[in-house]
């Protein structure tokens, strides 16, 4: 190989090197961006030290129980009793006509899941706490106050009437990871032979964001 040819090759090699540098220069100029790559001890140190100090989320605090219900649209203001399941498997109902009750075996309002609040539509002699529940329409607000005085607000999505024989148990009680609220009372025709209404009115509400 002649000297001139060697020089030419050297120049070409240098140019090739420069070209190579320029194509990747933008990335290589900021090597610290490659932070997740196990490439250098220096980079590793920071992540490892941080990982050594890692603590998982703990100290779960239960959401306080609901104590009061307000539905401005139908002038409802009520304290809340706690309800469970009756011996026959049906949901317990409030013992007082004028007070609503929260199904305490289900989620607390604001937690993931369907919180359920029940109230009577009427007593044996006149209107009860959920007498006007059927008037709720999409967009109406429902406010639940909890034991720590915090409030959680829900917005009505729909109001439906169901024959009790076709009560939508899954839609009302089945676990969900969405925070929802169901208000339940009686509606439809009253059956004097059984002493009960034939239907339930259910208000489906979602948490107000």
């Amino acid at each position: 190989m002649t000297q001139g040819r060697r020089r030419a090759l050297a120049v070409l090699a240098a140019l090739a090197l420069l070209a190579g540098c320029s194509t990747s220069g933008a990335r290589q100029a900021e090597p610290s961006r490659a932070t997740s790559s196990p490439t250098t001890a220096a980079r590793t140190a920071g992540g490892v030290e941080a990982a050594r100090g890692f603590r998982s989320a703990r100290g779960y605090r239960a959401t306080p129980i609901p104590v009061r219900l307000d539905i401005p649209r139908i002038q409802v203001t009520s304290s809340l009793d706690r309800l469970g399941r009756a011996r026959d498997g049906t949901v317990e109902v409030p013992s007082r006509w004028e007070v609503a009750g929260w199904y305490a075996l289900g989620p607390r309002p604001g937690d993931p899941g369907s919180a359920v609040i029940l109230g009577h539509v009427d007593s044996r002699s006149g209107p009860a706490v959920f007498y006007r529940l059927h008037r709720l329409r999409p967009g109406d607000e429902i406010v639940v106050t909890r034991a720590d005085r915090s409030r959680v607000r829900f917005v009505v999505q729909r109001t439906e009437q169901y024959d009790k024989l076709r009560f939508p148990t899954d839609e009302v009680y089945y676990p969900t990871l969405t925070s929802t609220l169901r208000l339940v009372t009686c509606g439809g025709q009253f059956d004097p032979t059984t002493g009960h209404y034939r239907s339930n009115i259910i208000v489906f509400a979602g948490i107000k964001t």
Partner: protein
Amino acid sequence: MRSRTVLIALVAFVLATAAACDSNKANRSSSAAPTQTTAHPAEHEGATGAAAPGSPTELGAQFEQLLGQHALLAVRQMRGVVAGQRDFREAADAALQENTDALSRLVASAYGDANGDRFKQLWQRSITDLDAYADAVANNDAAAEQAARTALVADSDAYGSWLAEAADGRVEAGDAPNDLRVHVEHLMKQVEAYAASKYDQAYEIERQAYEQLFMVGAPLAKGSLTPKLAARLDAPPEKLRSAFAMLLGEHMELIIDAQRATFGGSPEFKAAAAQVNANTTVLTKAMGAIVGPQKASEFQSAWGNHVEGLLAYSTAAADKDEAAKAAAEQNLDGFAARLALYFSDIVRNVLPVEPLTKAISAHDTHLVGQVDAYAARDYGKAQEMERDGYQQMLGVAGTLVGAIQRTVKPGLPVGGSQTGGGGTARPAR
């Protein structure tokens, strides 16, 4: 009753995880997408409601899983571009291609082969444009960024037009392009944040991107189904399965992020770890929705040990400290044994401790293997383990909800409520 239910569900989860671990290789091909077929799911009108392969719920679940995975793979691929990690990028590219192939096969099974081909073409174009966007960000090239952004908006519109036609009116005209626009916006924003070393923002957006695209799975499945079949995807048990699949898949992926960030700088690890904790908090609340607050607290404690144990192993792996790795594995075994005792005790020894311990250990082994592969810079294997681990979650969620179905439902109140005295009775209310 509730606590017992929860524990059984948790135990079922653990068992399912272990079972999935054991059968990873055997299931690998089947976990991608169903075999190509021209049969339209809507033709199976008379099929049972069980989530058998090809059922509407199975279709929805697979779309969710693959779309969620796409979001995460795209995030990592784009970050690989910005960081100039050539080896990692090659592995990420391959994983993304594999995911695209599986998604396209699934689209073909739902909408027919021609639509599968068209989808693949559109999807690959958007991946190319995302890659171009990441490249532009890496090179601080504003003009190239704008060009890639414009191309991605066009990709979203093209996807929307395709789906509107393929679904034949079963999806809202504006929904599909909007879904994809939100997705590409997430991906662009996260890579911008990552390139600017705003890791908190980058990892938070990553989680949003995953959840958003995961939830596009059900509408995409519904577009291929009759209204009657599509309604099955809205049934409460199916929605619960979907929600748990999303959270458990997210847990797996965020742990992997944190494991890998152990090899990076402190700010990036903290950002990744913050999202792991956010997922744990949401998962705990989700468990609380089923088992009540006291048992949710117990769940969080047990889960916390699991997470800390895995990251302790990652720390040891990053340190290349074999003794510390062995100690961390021993601790993980201890956590597994204690967890098994806890679960067995809660279900009053209905489930024996030994298989429970093995199941939990198998789950740990999967994530340990992932970080070992990453530490060895065997990114192909790390991606493979990521894929397998993520795919397990579909079965996990199904088993979990199956257990809930069997144990929770009998405890729900029966029928309607007797909430009226009749004092204001009238013909119709």
